[in-house]
């Protein structure tokens, strides 16, 4: 008995207990774990795990299922660290489970204040982990730190006031000794921001306003004082290049969403990628995908960091399948525009010029009587995670084929009220549909696609087993051959899927996990 105890104690010491910054930088070297929202800093969502592969994926079956009982969209992406799974659920809930059995280790529920009007619902997309702490946001735009051992609250800091209609749904990003977050609320006349907090103390380390004031560079891209309610939310997790020490973060729509008459100008840095020094929050460079947007085409889609051969040269690039229907490739050190190619139907731009600026088509702007434009307001892509397989060199992502009728009218700003500038309606002359698409990021060429019955809201994951995992709007989790696009396996989960799967390994067994409905479902081979 005593001997067993000593052996167990020794085993505990060799387990890496804490998630250090160094482990985060080298996350791809721990394929058994899933250490950040994206799985690593580059957001390729790839794992070198091949126990589940193209020849046996058809045998996948449900291994365990955990029910949260929480209503609403379950958009979390779990973290898995050394056999323990951590994830969030709607309304600021956090859970720790045994990643092999799904049995609960602890549950934390944040006491939300009563009588607070939330701008953006109760969705939560996940956690960051650093050291022995987990970090999550709350619907009323707080960032909190929890002890990963038992879920105890360590600190609670307000990001921005919920009374001014700031909210938060994002999974935070841990970089060095800081926790970086963004905000929601772009439909309520907020002024967007990216904040860094000291991981230890919860004190704000820096803030970057995504909408510059009149006297700052870019302030002249806003008419009069429209910058004060200019939107530019930052509700999706950014990416990070440790070698270049650069942080990449997408910025959302300008406000009001559909009426631009009161905010003439390019409206920086809305619908842009901003690239910051993670130590100071200083802007290093930016690229605006959709100047003066009037379609709610946030640039919140994943800014994925890739090293590819582009026109014969090895390049470090950042790529994004943007909501506006174009796939962009930028040099991630300098911001140089390299390429933009349409990946879905679009009717708003004639082309993207050689500087990366769209040349507008006629009839693409919302009007009082309504204008039919593709893509629709939800975009040809959106926040749903893409993935990349280094073996094929291809980018895998969900595509939405759907158009909208966009209406426009000048709105009056009232603090705390929606600030849309009119409305949109789905085009009714056709049914929406979608694709899972494999694309060569060096050329923008489609390598294969798989048609979905409905436009998807779910992301993808790649593995060295030659597989792409993806979800769809009808509730299927699916596995595809990454080379051919052949569907190898699918299972109906019973609810629309609004997040992306992960994979991990415990005791030599590979698992695939996904949130659907109110359940965290985990699949494995028999």
């Amino acid at each position: 008995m005593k001997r067993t105890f000593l052996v167990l104690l020794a085993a505990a010491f060799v387990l890496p207990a804490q998630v250090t910054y160094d482990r985060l930088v080298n996350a791809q070297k721990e394929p058994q774990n899933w250490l950040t929202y994206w799985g690593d800093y580059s957001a390729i969502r790839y794992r070198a795990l091949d126990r589940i592969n193209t020849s046996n994926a058809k045998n996948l079956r449900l291994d365990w299922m955990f029910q949260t009982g929480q209503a609403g969209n379950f958009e979390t992406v779990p973290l898995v660290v050394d056999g323990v799974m951590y994830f969030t659920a709607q309304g600021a809930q956090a859970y720790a489970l045994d990643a092999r059995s799904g049995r609960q280790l602890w549950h934390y529920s944040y006491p939300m204040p009563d009588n607070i009007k939330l701008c953006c619902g109760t969705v939560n997309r996940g956690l960051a982990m650093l050291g022995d702490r987990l970090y999550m946001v709350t619907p009323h735009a707080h960032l909190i730190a929890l002890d990963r051992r038992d879920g105890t609250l360590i600190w609670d800091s307000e990001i921005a006031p919920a009374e001014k209609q700031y909210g938060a749904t994002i999974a935070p990003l841990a970089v060095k000794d800081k926790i970086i977050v963004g905000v929601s609320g772009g439909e309520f006349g907020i002024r967007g921001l990216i904040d860094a907090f000291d991981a230890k103390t919860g004190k704000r380390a820096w803030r970057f306003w995504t909408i510059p004031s009149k006297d700052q560079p870019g302030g002249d891209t806003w008419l009069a004082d429209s910058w004060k309610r200019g939107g530019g939310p930052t509700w999706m997790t950014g990416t990070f290049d440790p070698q270049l020490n650069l942080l990449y973060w997408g910025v959302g729509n300008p406000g009001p969403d559909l009426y631009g008459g009161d905010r003439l100008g390019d409206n920086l840095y809305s619908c842009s990628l901003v690239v910051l020094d993670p130590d100071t929050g200083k802007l290093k460079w930016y690229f605006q995908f959709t100047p003066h947007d009037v379609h709610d085409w946030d640039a919140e889609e994943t800014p994925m960091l890739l090293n590819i051969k582009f026109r014969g040269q090895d390049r470090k690039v950042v790529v994004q399948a943007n909501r506006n229907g174009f796939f962009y490739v930028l040099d991630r050190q300098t911001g140089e525009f390299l390429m933009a190619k349409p990946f879905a139907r679009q009717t708003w731009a004639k082309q993207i010029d050689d500087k990366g600026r769209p040349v507008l088509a006629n009839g693409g702007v919302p009007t009082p009587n309504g204008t039919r434009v593709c893509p629709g307001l939800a975009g040809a892509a959106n926040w749903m995670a893409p993935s990349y397989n280094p073996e094929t060199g291809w980018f895998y992502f969900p595509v939405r084929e759907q158009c909208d009728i966009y209406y426009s009218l000048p709105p009056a700003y009232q603090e705390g009220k929606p600030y849309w500038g009119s409305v949109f309606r789905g085009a009714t002359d056709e049914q929406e549909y979608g694709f899972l698409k494999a694309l060569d990021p060096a050329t923008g060429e489609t390598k294969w696609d798989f048609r979905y019955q409905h436009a998807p809201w779910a992301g993808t994951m790649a593995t060295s087993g030659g597989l792409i995992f993806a979800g769809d709007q009808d509730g299927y989790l699916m596995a595809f051959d990454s080379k051919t696009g052949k569907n190898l396996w699918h299972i109906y989960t019973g609810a629309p899927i609004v997040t992306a799967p992960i994979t991990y390994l415990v005791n030599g067994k590979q698992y695939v996990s996904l949130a659907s409905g109110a359940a965290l479902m985990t699949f494995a081979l028999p």
Partner: protein
Amino acid sequence: MCLAAQSGLSASIGPLEQGKALFRSNCAFCHGLDGRGGRGPNLVSAPRTHGESDEAVKNVIRKGVPGSTMPAFSTLEPDELDALVLFVHVLHTGASGTETAAGDPADGRKVYESSGCPSCHRIGLKGSAFGPDLTRIGASRSLEYLKQSITDPSADIPPEYAGVAVVTKNGQRIAGVRINEDTFTIQIRDQSQQFRNFEKSELQSETEMKQSLMPPYKLPQQKLENLLAYLASLKGEAPVTGPVKQTEGIR
């Protein structure tokens, strides 16, 4: 972004213009740009079955109409609701008279029963679930729309009654109403009201039917008028309770 909201129109324009704009973007799809009906009732000349007062109209907009396709527009701000109600009142008072059916509803009922309508439609609990439920069709469609639905049913096919035909790999053809469909499966209700469920891998083809599953009826003028009068008289309570929700979006 937020896909659930269809409001947010605190316009810096007059309330009547604001109401018109809200109507155009939220209501016109079913009630027509001029309010004279379509898939929804004629708001210009049809009687107000849910009451005339501001509060009654607001209630319909806010909560929807159970048993009908009128959804709840619960995200409208109070000032938007006021503006919309103002515009709906203006639409109604702009009518030259109320819409009435000239025919004989008692004879129309006989026409309904003798023309085979109950083999596809249901009134109350009587009839078939294959086609649209007509229990309160008189309250939810304009006469013009009803007439077109009888004489030229393919002119407007509600998506929930769109026809689809599949052919299985062993050559069997099944046509009916598409109840549900996803990437891998399809569920059909055939004319015998049976559910026919398929994996798409079992099918050799699937065809959207361009024509309505309902045949066009060429009735003598008087019989048509009588049938219309009968249908217009159907304003019964549908067996659905609770508010009708708009499709929720995703944040």
